[in-house]
C-alpha cells in the first residue's frame, strides 16, 4: 500500500497526542503511529527525531533513559505541562481546520 506523507505540522500534534496517554520511546512512537494510522503513515527517524528534539528543547516534552519491558535501555519521552497546553491548542486548531476543509470539499 502507498504510504502517505504526513501533512506539514501535524507530526508534532500526533507525537503530543501519543505522549499524552503514556511516556514512550522513539521506536514505540513510530510503531504506534503506523498502527493507529492503519499503516497509512510511516514515520522514519529522519522526521521523528528532529521533531522530538525540537519539542524537548522547547520544553514541551521531557526525556529520560529507562529500561524497556524487554530490558533494553531506551529514551522515554513524556509530556510536560507546557506540552499539554500546546496539545490542547493544536488539537483545537486541527479540529477546526479539518472541519473547514471537509466542509469545503463536501460543499463543492
Amino acid at each position, binding site marked *: 500500500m502507498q504510504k502517505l506523507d504526513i501533512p506539514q505540522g501535524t507530526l508534532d500534534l500526533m507525537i503530543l497526542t501519543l505522549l499524552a496517554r503514556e511516556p514512550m520511546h522513539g*521506536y514505540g512512537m513510530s510503531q504506534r503511529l503506523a498502527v493507529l494510522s492503519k499503516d497509512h503513515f510511516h514515520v522514519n527517524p529522519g522526521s*521523528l*527525531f528532529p521533531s522530538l528534539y525540537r519539542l524537548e528543547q522547547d520544553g514541551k516534552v521531557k526525556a529520560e533513559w529507562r529500561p524497556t519491558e*524487554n530490558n*533494553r*535501555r*531506551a*529514551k522515554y519521552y513524556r509530556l510536560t505541562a507546557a506540552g499539554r497546553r500546546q496539545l490542547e491548542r493544536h488539537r483545537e486548531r486541527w479540529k477546526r481546520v479539518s472541519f473547514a476543509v471537509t466542509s469545503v470539499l463536501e460543499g463543492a
Partner: protein
Amino acid sequence: MTLLRRLGSMVRWVIHRDRAERELNDEMQAFVDMAVADHVRNGMTPDEARRLAVLQLGGVEQAKARVRSGRHGAWLDEVGRDVHYAVRTCIRNLGFSGLAILTLAIGIAGTTSMFAMIQGVLLRPLPVLDQDRLIVAWREAQTSGSARYPFGSDEIDLVRDESRLLVNTAGVSRNGVGRAVVVENGASSYVNDALVTGAFFDVLGVRPVLGRAMTPADDVEGTEHVLVISDGLWRRRYGASHDVLGRRVMLAGEPFTIVGVMPPDVDYPNGVEVWRTTRSVPPTGPFGAAARQEVNLIARLQPGVTIAQVRSELGTLIEQLDQNAPPNVPRGLRPVVHSFEDVVVGDVRTSLVALFIAVALVLLIASANAANLLLMRGEARRGELAMRTALGAGRVRIIRQLLIESMVLTLAAGAAGLAVTWWSLQTLVSLVPDGLPRVESVRMDARVVLFTIAIAFVTALATGLAPALVSLKVDLVSHLKNGGGRGMAGRSARHGRRALVVAQVALAVMIVAGAGLLIRSVLRLQSVDLGLAADRLFLVSLDLPEKYVERERRAQFLEGMIAQLESVSGMSAVTPVNVSPFTGQGWDLPAFMAEGQTAEQAVANSSLNLESVHPNYFETFEVPLVRGRAFTASDREGAPDVAIISEDVATRTWPGADPIGKRLKMGGLPDPDPHWYTIVGVAANTRYRDLTRPRPTLYLPAAQFQMTAGMLALRTTATLDLVASLARDRVRAVDPDVHVMRVTRFTDMLDVPLARPRFNAFLLTIFGVAALLLSAIGLYAVMAAYVQQRDREIAIRLALGATATAVRHLVLAEALWLAGLGAVIGLAGAASTTGFLRGMLFEVQPLDPSVIAGAALLLIAASALASYVPVRQATGVDATAVLRSD
C-alpha cells in the same frame, strides 16, 4: 519561549556537545536494535533483520544531521566551521593574508594609539568633583579683548559672599605655574609652584592621598606657610615616603612646611609640583602685590547653573567691585567665563582631534586596501564560490562566509595592532612635548582595548561588505559554464576596485596635504625673525639668597657680575634678565595712555609686555634700535623717567609722527597727577616672550623700575661647557652664597615653543607616509590585476602589431587616470578640510596652494612609480601562450 531559555539550551548544546552527541547515537542505536528485535520476532534471521532495519530506517546519519541542525545554537557550529575554514584559507594564502593583516594592523594601531591619547587627555574625567560645575573666569576690556585682567585675592572672597550662583570660589595665579627655587639640605633646585587661595582644593573637590589640603585658615597674612605637593614630586624627590609630612623646606627664600600630597592626575595649573597660598609671597617683596592681585577666579557652580548665567551675574558683581576699587584701576570690564575642562585641556583638543581624524582616514585607506585584496581574491575564487552555490550553499551562507573571512583577517590585524599600540604608546608618550596636559594619564586601559575590538569589527564589515556584495552579482552559472577559467573579470568587482583606489588616493592627498601644512608651519616658525640675534647667546639662571630682595644689594650684585663676566675675553656683552624667553610668561601692562589721548582712545591701545632692563640689554640681545638711544647708566633713580617702546607700539600710537620725546603713562584712565615716561628710543619688534607673535613691548630701565632679575644673558663665542664653568667661577668670586642653577643655549630655548608644533607635524607626517604607502600598494595591486585580467586583450593587441610602448601607454594611462581622479577629488577634500588645522598653523594658510598641489602631485608621482612593475609586466605578456590557453 523565553530568550533566556533559548540561550540556556544553546549554551548547554555548546558545552555538553559530546554528551548530547553520544546520547543521540545511543538513541538511534536503540531504535535500530528494537526494529531488529521486532523483525526477528516475526521470524527473520538476525542478519536479515539487521539489513532490513537499516534499509527501512535508512539515513540514520541524515536523521542525526537534521536533529543537529534543528538545535538552538546550531548556527554556532556552522560559524565555527566557517571560522575554521577562513583560518585555513588565510594560512593557505599567507602572502595575501599577511599583506592584508599588515595593512589593517597599521591602520588599527594608529587609530588605537590616537584614541588612547584622546581618551587619556580629553575623555577621561578630570580628577575633580563634578567637573561640569567648575568654571574659571577673568576680566577683559569691553573693546580690545586682548588684555586679560585678573582678580585680586580679596575680590575672590567678595564674589563668593555676594554671588547666588556660585557655591565657593578660589583664586589661582593667572600665569599658571612659576619657577621657584627650593633649598633643602643645602642643595637647591627648581620646582614648578602655583599660587592659589586657601579654598582652592575645596572648590576643586579633591582630597589629598596623604596629609591634608590647604584651607582658608592657611591663607592668612602672617600664618605659617604650608605646601601641598604633587604626586609626581612626592615620588621623584621623596621616594613616596610618608615622612614627607611636616618636612620643612625653603622655597623662594621663605620657610614652608609640607602638609599634604595630592593624588596623581591633579595637574592644575598644568605642570604644577607644589601649591602654596598667594599670601605666602612676602607682601613687601617685588612680587607681593602681583601675587595677591593677579589671580583667575575658579568657582564651583550651584547645580544646574549655566555659564551664561554666571557671566551675567559676574558682570553685575564686577560693577560692585569697581565701586570699591582704587581710582587707577580700569573699570567697565566684562567677565570671561570658561568651563574648567576647556581651560585645562585648552587648544590641545583641536590638535588631538585633527590628528585622530587623520589617522582614522589612514585606517579608511587601509580598509580600502584590504577590501581591494579581498575583492581580488574573491575573483580568483569565483570558481570555488560557484561550485559551492551549485552544491546548495545559499547566498546568505556565502556572504556570511566572506564576512567571517574578513573578520578573521581584521581580528588578527586588531590583535597585532593592539600589540603595536602597546609599544607605540610608550614611545608616543615619551615623545610628547612637556606641557601637554594630562599626558601621564594616557595608558592602555579597558576602554582602549574595547575601542580596538569595536574598530576591528567595523573595519571587518567595511572591508568584507564590498567583496561580499560583489560576489552576489557574479553570475555563477555562466561562470561554471565557461569552464571556470579566466574570462572577463566581474564588471562590478573591477569598478569596485577602481573606486576604492580612487578613494585611497583622494584620502591620502588630504592627509599628505595636512602634513605638508604642518611641516611648512614648523619651518616657518623655526626660521621666523626673532628680532634679536639668537646665536652665541646663553642664559645663566641664578639662585639668589634672600638678602637680594633688597633692591640696592641686588643692583650691586648684578653690576658686579656684569663687570666680572665682561672682563673675560670673547665675552661681548652681559645683561640681567627677568624671565625665560618663549614661555609666554612675563609682566603685562594691561592698559596705558599716551599724552594727549582721551580715555576712549586709550581703550584701543594694546596691552603691553613690560620689560625691566639694564642699559646693555639691547646690545646683548642685539635688538636693533630703529630710533633714538638705548638706556644708559645715567637713567637712574631720580633722573627723568624714560622708556623705550617697540616699533609696533610707536606706529600704532603715534602714526606718522616721531615718538621720541613723546610721553605715556601706565593705566588707561586720566589721572590728576600722572606719572609720565618719556620715550627715548624705539626698538625692533621681538618675539622674546612668545615665538608665535611679537608682543608690543614697553622697556623701562631696571634702575628706575623693578630690580628683580635672577638670570644673566651672555653673548660670547665660548662653548656651553666653557660658559657654564666660567659662570660658576665668577659667581663664586662675587658671592659664594649664590648658586648657578642652569646654563642654557638660547637657541635650545627655542625647542620649547617648537616642541608641540614639531610633535604634531611629526605625527601627521607619519600618518601621511603611511597613507602614501598604503595607497601606492593599493594602486599597485589593482594595476597588477588589471594587467593580469586583460592579458588576452594585450596579447591580441601585440599580435596585431601594437608596439610595447603603445601597450605600456595603455596601462600607464589607466594608472594615471585613477591616480589623477583621486588627486582631484583629494584636492577638493583637502581644500574643504584643512580649515580644521587653522589653529595649528603658523603663517601658513590652510589653502596654501603650493602645499595642497604638492600633495596631489606627490600622490600622482607615487602612483606612477607604483604602477611601474605592472606596466613592465604588460609588455612581457606572452601573446601566443595566452591566446592558446583558451
